[in-house]
């Protein structure tokens, strides 16, 4: 415990006193939050959404329903390859809904717009078309990156009892373009009004992403802390420490984590002060996703440091962490919708632990849905990366 305590204290004090470190770890995230999370979200108007619906009476009703939320609906006719068309629409920032002949509803969109459409469509199905089945639990199934999967297993039950079922089964194409996404809380049953909940939802999403990025950012903090320990010869001391190298490395990681938690705390305070939903940080989904990102960040940081020590002869600052962090953060949809990327890249990206963690946390916070199975896989991968970092880190180059 002595080593953990002293290393955590030393890391916190040292970084708090170093102006550069203090800026990057504590001030910079706050600046980003203020610029993008507070100032740019101030002028958020009503959503303006265009919806294209195939020529059917049911779809028209659905369009009307969407228009009730200030969404513009239009009809799409005679598409040879509707799915491909809708995916392309989604790729340019629009949201699209496809009701297949087998009744499966799929929402194509960017991660920002999709859930709103998903919620609206589901609500339309539930309240407008099948209101008499209110006592049926209509869970909004897994929404990933704006794509709602397997949405119809409950709807099918409802549809089986109404005359309009066939219409929905008959290949309705809905395309929506939405500038912002909307809130849906409560797993598809308790929807929040779009016009009042939109802002809160965007802010919640922004908070989740900022919080998760801080966990993920540990790859830089750990890599640079290890570098600093290398420069000061502390790594030699750690190698010779009776605590063993694993405990020593974990103690270093814990020191870095303490900084991340301080950063997270300061963002939570700032969010609270400006009226943002800081309580998202207490959501179980967010917390486990944050831990997953922490494991991933520490693991990658250790791997970078291990490679630096093993492969480089001199002691020079690591060059990899910053570009790697930015690349992974962008790919994983923290700074831009991941769905805008080419499909091939997206397929790879969707397996990255930070991507899965983000989607898991957002879905948990906004819908109360938890895809534990998928998340556990990503969590295990993050854990494996951490273990790999610990095992491969030599602490010193024993040449």
């Amino acid at each position: 415990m002595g080593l953990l305590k002293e290393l955590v204290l030393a890391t916190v004090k040292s970084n708090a006193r170093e102006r550069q470190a203090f800026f990057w770890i504590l001030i910079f995230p706050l600046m980003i939050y203020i610029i993008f999370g507070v100032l740019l979200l101030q002028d958020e108007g009503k959503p303006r959404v265009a919806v294209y619906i195939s020529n059917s009476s049911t779809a028209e009703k659905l369009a009307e329903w969407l228009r009730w939320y200030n969404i513009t609906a239009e009809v799409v006719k005679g598409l040879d390859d509707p799915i491909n068309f809708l995916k392309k629409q989604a790729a340019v920032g629009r949201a699209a809904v496809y009701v297949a002949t087998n009744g499966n509803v799929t929402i194509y969109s960017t991660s920002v717009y999709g859930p709103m459409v998903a919620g609206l469509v589901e609500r339309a199905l539930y309240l407008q078309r099948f209101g008499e089945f209110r006592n049926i639990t209509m869970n909004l199934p897994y929404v990933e990156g704006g794509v709602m999967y397997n949405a119809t297993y409950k709807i099918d039950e409802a549809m089986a009892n109404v005359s309009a079922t066939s219409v929905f089964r008959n290949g309705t194409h809905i395309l929506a373009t939405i500038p912002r996404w909307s809130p849906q809380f409560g797993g598809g049953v308790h929807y929040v009004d779009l016009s009042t909940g939109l802002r809160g939802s965007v802010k919640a999403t922004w908070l989740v992403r900022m919080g998760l990025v801080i966990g993920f950012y540990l790859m830089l903090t750990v890599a640079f802390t290890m570098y600093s320990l290398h420069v000061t010869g502390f790594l030699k001391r750690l190698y010779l420490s009776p605590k063993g190298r694993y405990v020593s490395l974990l103690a270093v990681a814990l020191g870095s984590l303490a900084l991340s938690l301080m950063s997270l705390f300061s963002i939570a305070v700032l969010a609270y002060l400006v009226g943002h939903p800081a309580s998202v940080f207490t959501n179980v989904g967010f917390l486990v996703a944050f831990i997953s990102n922490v494991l991933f960040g520490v693991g990658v940081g250790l791997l970078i440091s291990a490679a630096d020590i093993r492969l480089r002869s001199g002691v020079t600052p690591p060059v990899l962490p910053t570009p790697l962090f930015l690349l992974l953060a962008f790919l994983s949809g923290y700074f831009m919708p991941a769905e805008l990327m080419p499909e091939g890249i997206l397929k790879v990206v969707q397996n990255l632990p930070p991507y899965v963690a983000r989607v898991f946390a957002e879905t948990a916070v906004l819908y109360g849905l938890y895809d534990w199975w998928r998340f556990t896989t990503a969590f295990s991968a993050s854990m494996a990366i951490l273990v790999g970092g610990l095992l491969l880190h030599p602490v010193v180059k024993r040449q």
Partner: protein
Amino acid sequence: MVVVEVVGVSKKYGNVTALEDVYLEVKRGEMFCVMGPNGAGKTTLLEGILGLRRLDRGTVRLFGVEVRGRPPFDVLRRVGYLLEGMDLDTALTAWENLRLVAAIGGVKTSDGELRAVLEAVGALEYAKRLYGKLSAGQKKRVLLAAALLGRPELLILDEPEANLDVASRLEIMDLVKRLVAGGVTVLFSTHAADIAVRYADRIAMLNRKILAVGSVEELVAKFGGRWKVVVRTKRQPAGQERDGGLYVTYVNSPAEVAEVLRGVEALEISVHPPDLGEVFRKIWGS
């Protein structure tokens, strides 16, 4: 009792031989110097003894215990070290740094013990100042204090006087010498012949392999080199050379100085140790 024993140690970096069949013994209570030019293998040897370098061949024993890789903790706790590139956190105070070093080394220290260590090296007055704000000499004192945590019986110091001004390097080495007087065994390296001559009880001349081992007197006696005696006097003693207004003579050992000065009215006398660098070059050349 032998504290450090190095038996037939060899080390190569690729095709470059760093150490070749090195043997040496450091006895309890002595101040043993490994002297050699840059690139002679001093750091490799000292870090190899502590397991920080992978040795190709040979055996290292610390306190009679054979060590391979990192020494066991019950051995390590008896060793203090100040190695190449070892520094402290510039954004922490000297005090905080020592607490951290103690925690890493598994040394339980009270505030009183920390204070005593800092006092022993004359660093107590700036214990609460940021390490980064200290002068080079002050930093070295704090580093020495870090090496002394846990009251080690053996100190391994890699060029402890390096990068210091003339006065500071002597102060630091005087400190180390005092530690030896207190019962600590010191194994240190240097490339400065004057430091080796002035402080070491025994010197191992290293240039990839051990070229010679012994006290200054033994080395000088064996390989040549004389002590320089500079005398300012009213009249020139017989047999002395004139050197810039002073009279200079050379003797084989300090014991001969009194003999030389007999009958001389000296105003000022200074005695300079033999130029061990010259001896080193002579050995190396041979």
